[in-house]
């Protein structure tokens, strides 16, 4: 098997990297792909909880590179599918506990047995980000439609380009259709015109995500949720299927509310 390393990164923090990593990893696994996902946010372990696997962790990625344990001892099997494994971040160490070369070596090893190796990058453009960037075959950049997130995404795109990581695509997360319609939030097309890299998905703002994270059951398990549907489409596109981008529409408002809104402005 010749697996592919898919890095999920963003520049700005808190825009949805870990949420997307969890959904994409689990979604690909549920579609029959063999997936291992590595939390590279060392010191700020998160992916385990989003996936609901935090109770099973014994060893982590730092233990692997320091050869404290065997690789398979640190691979935590998912509860829902045999196709997904998680390698957790160390919680009591920092980003300098591993080097990019070590992560490259680790992912090369994993490529023999897995279709996808998904790397959840920490925020920023320093060492932790480089650890996630260097092994990447493909990079998914997450941004929200906010000015600072887009600016930071552009910076990351520039750094990826100068490291010859040109296989990039974009997820625009937390689009709020009502705000877009009012002109108070950049639309999907606005963001695309600024960043100019291929789009792989648009995920709406979904208030259910809080409770999905609370229970460790990512959106993809809730196939009727708005975010679940969006991630399902993203997974299809990653697998090379051609899916049209769904228009994210605001909830229907009656003519009366439209008139009221008009006068409010």
């Amino acid at each position, binding site marked *: 098997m010749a697996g592919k390393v898919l890095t999920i990164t963003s520049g700005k923090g808190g825009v949805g990297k870990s949420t997307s990593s969890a959904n994409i990893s689990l979604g690909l696994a549920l579609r029959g792909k063999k997936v291992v996902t590595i939390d590279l946010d060392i010191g700020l372990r998160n992916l385990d909880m989003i996936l609901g696997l935090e109770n099973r962790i014994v060893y982590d990625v730092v233990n692997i590179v320091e050869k404290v344990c065997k690789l398979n001892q640190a691979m935590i099997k998912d509860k829902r599918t045999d196709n997904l494994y998680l390698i957790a971040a160390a919680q009591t160490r920092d980003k300098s506990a591993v080097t990019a070369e070590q992560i490259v070596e680790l992912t090369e090893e994993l490529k023999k047995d897995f279709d996808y190796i998904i790397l959840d990058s920490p925020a920023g453009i320093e060492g932790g980000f480089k650890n996630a960037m260097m092994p990447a075959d493909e990079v998914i950049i997450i941004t929200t439609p906010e000015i600072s997130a887009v600016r930071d995404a552009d910076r990351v795109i520039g750094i990826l380009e100068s490291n010859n990581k040109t296989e990039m695509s974009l997820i625009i997360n937390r689009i709020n259709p009502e705000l877009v319609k009012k*002109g108070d939030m950049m639309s999907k097309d606005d963001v695309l015109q600024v960043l100019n890299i291929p789009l792989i998905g648009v995920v709406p703002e979904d208030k259910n995500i809080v409770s999905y994270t609370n229970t460790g059951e990512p959106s993809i398990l809730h196939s009727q949720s708005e975010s679940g549907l969006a991630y399902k489409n993203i997974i299809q596109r990653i697998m090379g299927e051609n899916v049209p981008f769904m228009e994210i529409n605001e909830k229907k408002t009656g003519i009366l509310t439209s008139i009221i809104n008009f006068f409010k402005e």
Partner: protein
Amino acid sequence: MLFNWFRKNKKTSANMAKERLQIILAHERAENKAPFLDDLRQDIIKVIAKYVDIDPSSINVNLQKDSSIEVLEINIPIK
């Protein structure tokens, strides 16, 4: 429809966000491709100012990339 037409004529905050980003990113992309440009600019000012009277703020240093060649363009208006 009519409501939308009225709205289109107003400059929305989303439009402003997009325009501000396009301007700042054009600048930052150039800067990141050639981080030495600012230093180079300072050095050129120093050297030229020894010989001719110039206005430092009017000096323009620009790196342009065509598909095949890169051009370093330096504009120095002399007083």
